[in-house]
Each structure stands twice: as C-alpha cells, then as structure tokens.
C-alpha cells in the first residue's frame, strides 16, 4: 500500500454524511418535536385568548357609568324634568366624562323596568337613566361626583360597575396566574423532553463517533456533522409543529362569529411571538444538547 502523505490539512466535507445511527429515532425526532411545539403553541394561545377577553370586558366596565335620576310625578315627558336637567348640567361640566346620553323610555324599561316594576305607579314614575363613558386618561373622583350629583338631583344613584369590575379583576388575576403557570410548565416539559430525547439518541451515536474518530476526523467535523443533522431535524419538526399550532388557532378565531378587531390586533402578534419563542427554544435546545453530548463523548477519548 502506498505511503499516506502526512500533513494533509483537514478540509472537512460540506455535504452531510448521514452517519446518524438509529434511523427510526431520526424519523421520530421531528415528529416528537413538532407535536410538542404544536401543543405548546396551541395551549398557550388558548389561555392567552381567555385572558384577553377578560381584559377587554374589564376595559368596557371600567369606562361605563350609569346615573339613575328619580323624576317628579305628573310630568308629560321625563326629559323635561328639572332634576334631570341639573344632573346633566353637572355631568357635562365635569372634565373626563364623554358620551353622555339619556336613554329613551323603552331602553330605560328594558334596563331597569323589571327590577322596579313593583314599586312603580302614579306617584313613583319611571326614573331617567343617563349613560356616559369615562375618558381613559382623566381620573374622575367618584365620591366627588356623587356629592355634586346628590346636590343637583337628590336621590340620584351613580353606578360605576364596581361589583362587576372587582369580579372581572379577580378573574383576570386567576387567568393570568394560570396562563403563567401553564407557560412555565409547558416550557419546562418541552425543554426537558427535548434535552432527554436528544441525549438518548446521541448516546446511540457513541460507536459511530469512535469510528469517525479513528478514521481521523477532527473534532469540529464530528460535532458539526451531528449538530447539523439534529439542527435540520429540529427546524423541520418544530417549524411544522409551531406552524400547525398557529394555523389551528387562527382557524378557531376566524370561525368564531364575534371576532373583535382589537382581539386580532393584539393576539395576532402574540400568536407569532409565542410560536417563534417555542420554535426557537426547541431548535436551540436540540442543537446545544447535541453539541454538549458529542463533546462529552469526544472528551472521553484521548
């Protein structure tokens, strides 16, 4: 056999060598990573959507006020009532209130008629209802408003949805907590599963690594062959999985009749963000784990 030339420099081949042992594992890996990213993306988004719905209900409740003004008996038209006029004047003079509107009789009956039915009569006519909104940035003191309203229209009631708001706040807190917990658990499970499966499949590679080593392959070539292979598998698997998760969620949104434009505006970026984070996490962990395991195997050699 002719003498091998020494001092040949290591020009590593660029094409993948397909040396990964355990082709069944190699086929299973992207499926597994894909499934994980699909489930993770889907569940996180579901949870985030519930949070968002509560948040927007809270915003509405926060901005809506109702004032109920008792009217004097015997007037042909309640809108002519002086107490109502005074109450409206006070409200209009207050900075930070908008959309001030007096409900017509039908709407009033719909809103409070049932509750008051028994007490209504010739001496106690239907009260007037004013709905109004709060401008988001200006802080209006409710106690102060109640005081001036009481002076302008005695017996009037200002409802600022306090009960509903505190209920929604509690719901929001609970939902935010469960979203965070779900996210943490999912990321943990996804990370642990990725690291474990990749570690396991890399342990299978020990004999191949020894063959490569004794064939004169430099460390970086061995590391690159394996990380490159796993990187491609992870890209494929996690990419498809995250994509499918997003698609599924989008489909659900499109099919739900009450698609709030604000919902799409906020949740669409969140959808992309969550998918990208989970995708990147899986690909990164898979590659880093491969590198770590192969390096560990190489260190055991001389």
């Amino acid at each position, binding site marked *: 056999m002719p003498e091998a030339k020494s001092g040949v420099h*290591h020009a590593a081949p660029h094409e993948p060598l397909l040396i990964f042992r355990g082709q069944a594992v190699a086929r299973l890996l992207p499926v597994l990573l894909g499934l994980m990213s699909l489930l993770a993306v889907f569940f996180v988004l579901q949870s985030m959507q519930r949070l968002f719905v509560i948040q927007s209900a809270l915003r509405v409740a926060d901005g809506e006020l109702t004032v109920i003004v008792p009217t004097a008996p015997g007037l042909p038209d309640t809108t002519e009532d002086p107490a109502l006029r005074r109450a409206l004047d006070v409200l209009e003079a207050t900075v930070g209130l908008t959309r001030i509107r007096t409900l017509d009789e039908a709407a009033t009956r719909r809103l409070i008629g049932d509750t008051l039915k028994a007490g209504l009569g010739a001496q106690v006519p239907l009260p007037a209802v004013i709905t109004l909104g709060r401008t988001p940035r200006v802080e209006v003191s409710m106690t102060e408003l109640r005081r001036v309203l009481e002076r302008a229209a005695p017996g009037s009631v200002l409802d600022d949805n306090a009960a509903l708001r505190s209920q929604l706040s509690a719901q929001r807190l609970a939902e935010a907590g469960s979203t965070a917990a779900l996210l943490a658990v999912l990321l943990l499970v996804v990370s642990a599963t990725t690291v474990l499966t990749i570690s396991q499949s890399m342990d299978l590679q020990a004999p*191949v690594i020894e*063959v490569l080593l*004794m*064939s*004169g392959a430099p*460390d970086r070539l061995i590391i690159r062959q394996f990380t490159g292979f796993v990187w491609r598998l992870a890209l494929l698997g996690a990419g498809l999985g995250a994509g499918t998760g997003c698609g599924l969620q989008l489909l659900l949104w499109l099919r739900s009749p009450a698609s709030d434009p604000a919902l799409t505006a906020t949740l669409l970026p969140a959808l992309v963000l969550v998918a990208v984070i989970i995708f990147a996490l899986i690909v990164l962990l898979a590659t880093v784990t491969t590198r770590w395991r192969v390096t560990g195997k190489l260190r055991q050699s*001389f």
Partner: protein
Amino acid sequence: MDQISVDFPARLGVLQDVSLRVPSGGFRFVTGASGAGKTTLLRLMFLGIQPSQGRLEVFGRDTRKLSRDQKALVRSRLGVVFQDFRLIDHLSVYDNVALPLRVSGKARKGDRDYVHELLHWVGLGEHADVRPEQLSGGQKQRVAIARAVINRPNLLLADEPTGNVDDGIGIKLMRLLEELNKLGTTVVVATHSAALLERFDYPAIHLEGGRVKAAGQSGAAP
C-alpha cells in the same frame, strides 16, 4: 510505549506497567485470555483512550504533546478493525468503506475507483451497494478491513479479525493482512486463536491480567 497503565473509572489496572515497541513495518500478535486487555491495548494505540500513567509514542511522537487536531492527523494514519466491526448499518458497503476518506479530509478525484478496487481486493466487488446487515460475518469482517485500509494507513490494528469466521476464511483474512504488511504497513493483530498463532510465525505480545508476560522476540518499544 513505556510503562503504560490504563484505569477505567469502573475498574482499575486494566493494563499495568505495559512497555513494548512495535517496529515500523513489523507484524505482531497480541495474545491473551478473554479479558486480559487486548482490546484495551489496541484502543490505547489508536488514541481511543488515555493512559492514566506512562508514555505513549505513535510514529515517534509523544502523544502527550499533540493537540487534538494533531491526534486526528495521527489517527488518520491508522487503520482499525474493531472486534465488533462497527459498520454503520444504514450506509451501503461502499459508503462504509469510503467514510474515512470523507472525514479525514483526504478525499481525492480517483476515490470511487479506488474504493471499488479495494472492495474487489477483499472479494466484495459485487456487494458495494448492499447494506452490512445483508452480509455474513466473514463478509462484514472484510468490509471492516477494507475500511481500515482505505486511508493507506501506516499502522493497522486488527482486533480478533478472525474471531467470527471459520479457520479457512480466517486464514484468507490473515493472508490479506500479510499482503498489506509486505507493502510496508505495520500490522498488530489481537487474537486468542491458537491455530492462527501456530500457522503464522510472528512475534506475540502476550497479556495476562493486564501485564505483558512475553513480548515476542523484538521486545523493543513504537
């Protein structure tokens, strides 16, 4: 190698105070009972494991002074036939044999013809596209030998190359190794086959419980 000892975390003293030298161009047997340390000695020689003590020279270079890349270069001048072949199941015979050429950066133009030529030489010219699992033990053995010599090694280490075949084929395989030796390759063969030792008259390094009991006629160090 000089006063080499090898310890594994799980087992100490697998090799103890081994000193030997294989001259360039020589042919040596490594003998000893099962578990005596033959495989460990060969792994040491291809820099597969670290000695816990002592000095190891390969091709006249002290291995402690080599960087990892330089060790890779040293390994690319070695050929190894593993006791369990270590063929890669999902690659064809051709790809298995060509693997060292690709990973050691020695790939050249005429490689295709060379690989086929080598497969013919070991009598597997017709099996280039077959997967190793479809081969018999002796055929796998020959694929392993072809892979070990594809890089034209200066030193060939063969671990029980006749262990899985009957005597007739074993002798054929040995003739193959002799042929390589005549072309200038240093050959070290681990075996416990008495028939082989009787038939081929080469010096033997005899291991017993991790120590060298008789180091053939040369007794010098690689």
